[in-house]
């Protein structure tokens, strides 16, 4: 019996889709059977980030309206078998997706998969309600910006009212180390103090993420990049391992260290 985790944020553009793709990839790399569901009807992206856009034949609305079987709509990842995607519809009317329909799909997927990751649309309307309907757990994503933290707070409030079994956990995304140090950005403690939920991971703002997602290849495949390690750590924490938080300091050269010692800014 699998576990359904919804990935949500309230605010748009903080990295829900990228995170879903990467955590899914990281879990699959650890040989867990993973199914990603895109619930952002009309603005689907997850297929693009995964590089599976061309393979879509049926989508989630077709499944709900029973134009096809669930198995027919699932797309196997081109790189390996552990990962599948249930894409969102791009054209259909989104009113046909209901909470009951979502619950039905998810409970069916749970028989087959270890982890079902649900990519939630931005906002708190019906799309959000649908996305959280069948979830057992929730991960809330925020960036260290006030507006994003505010929306995350709102979302946590809504999630606490729902019957999502466990309290949501937090990912702080797009951390820019130098800005945090200068105090130009909220730091991790500030965010945690306001949201007061458990942190499951932090992800540094990494150019590799954008490069990778443009190529349709989640950054989690690249073992060297900082963001990739962060996503893999999050996946390990989802599996129940205890992994210490990544150090924010970038590897500095000797010269840099000497300069800092003398108080010279690079």
């Amino acid at each position, binding site marked *: 019996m699998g576990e359904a985790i919804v990935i949500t944020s309230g605010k748009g553009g903080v990295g829900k889709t990228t995170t879903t793709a990467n955590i899914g990839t990281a879990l699959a790399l650890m040989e867990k059977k993973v199914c990603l569901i895109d619930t952002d009807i009309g603005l689907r992206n997850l297929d693009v980030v995964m590089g599976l856009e061309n393979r879509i034949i049926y989508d989630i609305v077709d499944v709900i309206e029973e134009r096809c079987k669930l198995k027919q709509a699932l797309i196997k990842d081109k790189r390996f078998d552990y990962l599948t995607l249930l894409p969102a519809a791009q054209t259909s009317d989104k009113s046909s997706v209901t909470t009951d329909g979502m619950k039905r799909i998810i409970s069916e997927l749970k028989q087959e998969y270890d982890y079902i990751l649900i990519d939630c649309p931005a906002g708190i309307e019906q799309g959000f309600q649908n996305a959280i309907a069948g979830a057992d757990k929730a991960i809330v994503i925020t960036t260290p910006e*006030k507006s994003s933290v*505010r*929306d995350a*707070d*709102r979302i*946590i*409030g*809504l999630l*606490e009212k729902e019957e999502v079994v466990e309290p949501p956990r937090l990912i702080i995304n797009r951390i820019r180390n130098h800005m945090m140090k200068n105090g130009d950005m909220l730091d991790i403690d500030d965010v945690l*103090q*306001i*949201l*007061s939920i458990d942190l499951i991971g932090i992800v540094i703002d990494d150019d590799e993420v954008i490069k990778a997602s443009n190529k349709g290849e989640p950054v989690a495949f690249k073992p060297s990049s900082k963001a990739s390690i962060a996503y893999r750590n999050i996946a390990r924490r989802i599996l129940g391992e205890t992994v210490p938080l990544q150090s924010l300091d970038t590897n500095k050269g000797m010269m840099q260290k000497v300069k800092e010692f003398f108080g010279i800014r690079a």
Partner: protein
Amino acid sequence: MAQEKRQLITMKGTKDGLTLFIDDSCSFNQALQELKYKMNESKPTTTEPVVAVRVKLGSRYLREEQISELRQIITNENRFTIHSIESDVVLREEARQWQANSEIKAVNRIVRSGQVLHVTGDLLLIGDVNPGGKVMATGNIYIMGNLRGIAHAGVDGDTRAFIAASYMNPSQLRIAHYISRAPDYESDGVYMECGLVDEEQDKIIIDRLQVLPQKRKEINRFERRMQNG
């Protein structure tokens, strides 16, 4: 016969004015009749000073229209003004309301953005009020946690109400109809302070908790709203 002899209406002069006792074992109509008679008997001249009257009803409960009838008889053509009408009896409903208004409601949660927590009486919140969240109470608000959102005390117009918090960095404080907001620049909050209406400046001020014993003596009295009510 014995009943007719008994005085249904008794008046007593005190230094504050006149106290009028209405017997509570007779019917209301009987009492009114005797009252009318007595009032006519003692018709004063217009040169006499106005006298304040306290009406004591004993264990008699009067409905609104009965009270206005009583009022009319006493004040009509007389140099009387009614200071108060007191009864030893209250409706169950009113009593419940009084109780609700004088109780402290303890709530243990985080009030997050977009959430509103509204209570009757005093609010004791064990937890934070996050930016965008709002707590409201008809009485005082005590927050054991961080106040970063909006707190509104004395919602029904009690300007004596106040807001106390372990950490105070609100976006707005409201007390009755007063509103004050945080400055436009980023500011650090303050610890163990309270917000209350300063009568002289006619606005909300934030001060140390230590000023409360002087400025709001009534909080130490358990039944303060019972007495006000």
